[in-house]
């Protein structure tokens, strides 16, 4: 039997001890003396969230296929165990071997959302690894960051030894081989980092320097040494069909958020919504072949025993073989009582037909994401969904027996007016009216329309990356307008409205577009006790305000300012395919309320064609 890192007494006195014991079906055990590299893969949030992430499952499988690497997992201990570990000085450990992280060669941390940044420090701290990269000793693990937030790594620059920019499938082998060679030669840590910086996609923050103008904007961002590249190239896995994909994902003992087989049908999105970072950084859109998807689905269902399979992509309806894969899954698995879940589908005749086959219509709801209430504002953000399409989809669905609709919007978009906000209520009202047009005897009771708004956060590498944000009081005012207008609608009893907290949004905005000066704020807030900022029960805005104050960083500089187009942005040194010129053009078109066609309709010359593949090289209709 494996010896657990935590005693029975500790495990029996905390919530969900199964988070910390490993040993799940399909987790990988190796002998530590027989591998050259021990890699601890971390998702800096609680187990149930971290275990639901596809990217880690892909890399875990890919790394462990190498005989010389043993990749294990580690997640943020929940606050109950966090306290015990600090009190009793128990070092953070990996789930598989239960060995301390401090003894590993690499600690890889995936950065999926900004509000996990203090958890990154928690993981380092509990592991006994100095929080600052420059203070790490020779025998410390190499701390490497990746994931979407690594596209602006600067607010975390001080805490990471390196960042991997882009998709994980491409250069990890080169990095591991270099590490092995350096270990053999006895090359010191700093020299390994210097050599790693020459691998495309690897960014070593300590080898670069940022200087600032008097007004606080960046004057220059430059490598400190001659042979360190000035530009870091995003990594892209161009061939999705032959890309590594796990045959046997880990099956947790406890119920996790994504308790099902996840089948990634394509990467990237052709739509080009101007607020969406994923839609830009994952360009070009690349599909997996139907035959490979069928094989993956069969293998993963057999190896996990999961009772549900979910298709994953940014916009499933745009996958050209969607009917093929959906019909295959229905034919093959409905008899075996396997549920099929289809998120991010556009509501049309096909999707309604499929959904009525795979779901209980009375229980399920339809989801639309118009993102903005008025057509004018939808044109600004290039959300190609029209009111006509929404109403028609809702009408068809209502006739098909559905009566629940969820609508998602953003508030605080550039150029947004009172009228745009009120239109959110009007759109919901018109959907309700569609429902009540159906004769009473054919209806299924009342309809339930749920309107949810979040506040817009400008993200790097999007056409709206220059936009200003608003003060918390303004955001709440926006939400109040919507709420007030909904209450004035005829069918207001059929419409429910939810909105988010405003202060978290501002901090997310700071982290998303911050520079290296934000590192001190994060460190200070962490020392004041900030942790699990994505969790409402742990969130404390005052602590953050104190941290900004103590460090002397002006939050408004990052949030309340529309950047000028010639300003050097902290992430400008990363090349993602989509060019800054294209983003500027899109920013202007946003203000002109002009729509840009999607990649299948017409190439708009974003720059991703440089990768020579995916939708860029496909024939257009």
């Amino acid at each position, binding site marked *: 039997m494996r010896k657990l890192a935590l005693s029975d*007494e500790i495990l029996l*006195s905390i919530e969900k001890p*199964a988070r910390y014991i490993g040993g799940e*079906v399909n987790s990988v055990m190796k002998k530590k003396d027989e591998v050259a590299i021990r890699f601890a893969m971390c998702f800096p949030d609680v187990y149930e969230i971290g275990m639901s992430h596809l990217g880690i499952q892909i890399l875990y499988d890919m790394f462990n296929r190498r005989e010389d690497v043993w990749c294990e997992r580690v997640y943020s201990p929940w606050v109950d165990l966090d306290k015990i570990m600090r009190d009793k000085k128990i070092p953070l450990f990996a789930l598989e071997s239960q060995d301390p992280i401090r003894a590993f060669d690499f600690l890889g941390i995936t950065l999926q959302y900004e509000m996990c940044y203090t958890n990154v420090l928690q993981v380092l701290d509990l592991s006994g690894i100095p929080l600052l990269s420059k203070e790490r000793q020779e025998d410390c693990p190499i701390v490497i960051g990746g994931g979407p937030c690594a596209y602006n790594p600067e607010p975390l620059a001080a805490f990471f030894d390196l960042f991997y920019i882009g998709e994980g499938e491409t250069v990890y082998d080169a990095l591991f081989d270099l590490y092995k060679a350096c270990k053999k030669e006895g090359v010191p840590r700093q020299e390994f980092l210097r050599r790693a910086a020459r691998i495309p996609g690897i960014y070593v923050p300590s080898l670069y320097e940022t200087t600032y103008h008097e007004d606080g904007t960046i004057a220059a961002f430059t490598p400190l040494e001659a042979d360190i590249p000035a530009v870091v190239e995003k990594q892209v896995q161009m061939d999705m069909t032959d890309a590594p994909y796990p045959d046997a994902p880990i099956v947790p*003992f406890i*119920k996790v958020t994504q308790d099902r087989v996840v089948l990634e049908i394509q990467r990237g999105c052709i739509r080009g919504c101007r607020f969406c970072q994923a839609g830009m950084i994952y360009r070009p859109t690349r599909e997996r072949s139907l035959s490979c998807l069928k094989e993956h689905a069969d293998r993963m269902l057999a190896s996990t*025993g*999961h009772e549900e399979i979910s298709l994953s992509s940014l916009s499933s309806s745009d996958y050209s073989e969607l009917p093929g894969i959906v019909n295959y899954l229905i034919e093959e698995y409905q008899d075996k009582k396997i549920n099929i879940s289809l998120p991010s589908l556009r509501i049309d005749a096909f999707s309604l037909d499929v959904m009525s086959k795979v779901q209980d219509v009375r229980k399920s709801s339809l989801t639309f994401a118009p993102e903005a209430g008025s057509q004018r504002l939808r044109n600004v953000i290039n959300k190609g969904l029209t009111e006509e399409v929404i109403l028609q989809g809702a009408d068809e669905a209502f006739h098909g027996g559905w009566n629940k609709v969820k609508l998602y919007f953003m508030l605080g978009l550039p150029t947004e007016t009172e009228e745009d906000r009120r239109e959110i209520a009007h759109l919901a009202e018109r959907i309700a009216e569609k429902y009540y047009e159906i004769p009473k005897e054919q209806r299924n009771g009342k309809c339930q329309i749920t309107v949810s708004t979040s506040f817009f956060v400008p993200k790097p590498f999007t056409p709206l990356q220059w936009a200003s944000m608003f003060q918390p009081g303004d955001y709440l005012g926006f939400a109040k307008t919507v709420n007030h207008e909904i209450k004035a609608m005829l069918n207001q009893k059929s419409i429910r409205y939810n909105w988010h907290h405003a202060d978290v949004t501002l901090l997310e905005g700071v982290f998303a577009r911050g520079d290296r000066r934000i590192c001190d704020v994060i460190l200070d807030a962490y020392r004041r006790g900030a942790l699990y900022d994505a969790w409402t029960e742990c969130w404390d805005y005052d602590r953050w305000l104190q941290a900004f104050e103590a460090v002397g960083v002006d939050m408004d500089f990052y949030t309340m300012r529309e950047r000028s187009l010639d300003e050097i942005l902290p992430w400008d040194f990363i090349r993602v395919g989509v060019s800054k010129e294209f983003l500027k053009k899109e920013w202007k078109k946003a203000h002109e309320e002009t729509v840009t066609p999607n990649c299948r309709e017409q190439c708009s010359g974003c720059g991703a064609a440089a990768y020579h593949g995916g939708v860029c090289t496909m024939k257009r209709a």
Partner: protein
Amino acid sequence: MKFIGHLDVMRYFQKAIRRAGIDIAYTEGLSPHMIMSFASPLGVGLTSDAEYMDIELRTPISSRAAIDALNRVGVEGISVTGFYEVPEGKANKAMTLVAAADYIVRFRAGYEPERLQRSVQEKEAAACAEERIDLASAVESFCARREIPVWKKTKKSEREVDIRPMIYEMRYVPVMEQSKAKAESDAEEEKTAANPGAVFLRLASGSAANLKPELVMDALLGSYGVEASPFAYEINRCELYADTTSDTAQKTDESVTVMCAGETRRLTPLGALGREIL
């Protein structure tokens, strides 16, 4: 596996059955689920050698094949040891059949109540203000009592209950006789003088009468004024029984007899109710 809750153990088996390709039956209706039920949910923190569950198959499979298939797709710490066909009338009823359970209760290393430790006697017998308790004789005199009233907490109230009739058997187990698997892995620890030995319990279990092993141990120690610290007990469930007293057809070598409220009752391990599928 003792950290995995009962519902998650069920989820584990639902997925394991699918991985093993066993053709299980489902309920009818809009959201069909596997026809599967556990005899007696095991609490978090307890280990067990004898968990039972009922399933219904659409396609028959031999015991050997089923055991192999389930263990091939299983994890360390959970193994399937038997797979039996249950006769009509007893199928899908494991939960209502349970009448008794066997447990071994040991003291967790480092949590042995001081007055039970064997080392105390040798070290400072004279200096010790309170007398040392010998677990073996304590168990003996505890069992000799006619009545053992204890305060039992329920959701609503607290009331005094006589637990003696629900204790079918209770005896002292010397250190080396404890569960073999434990003795091997913890051989070192077993030798330490702190270990006072273990207690074997055969208790009423199930819906009619149910007695928890912790409660018996608390009562035993309580009668000497000793309060065990949290986590002091390490409990292993060793067997689950059905009451087969009135079932004349059901006679197996594995059955045991116990005295319950002046009557002799025959208990049969749940596994012995079914037969191997060839």
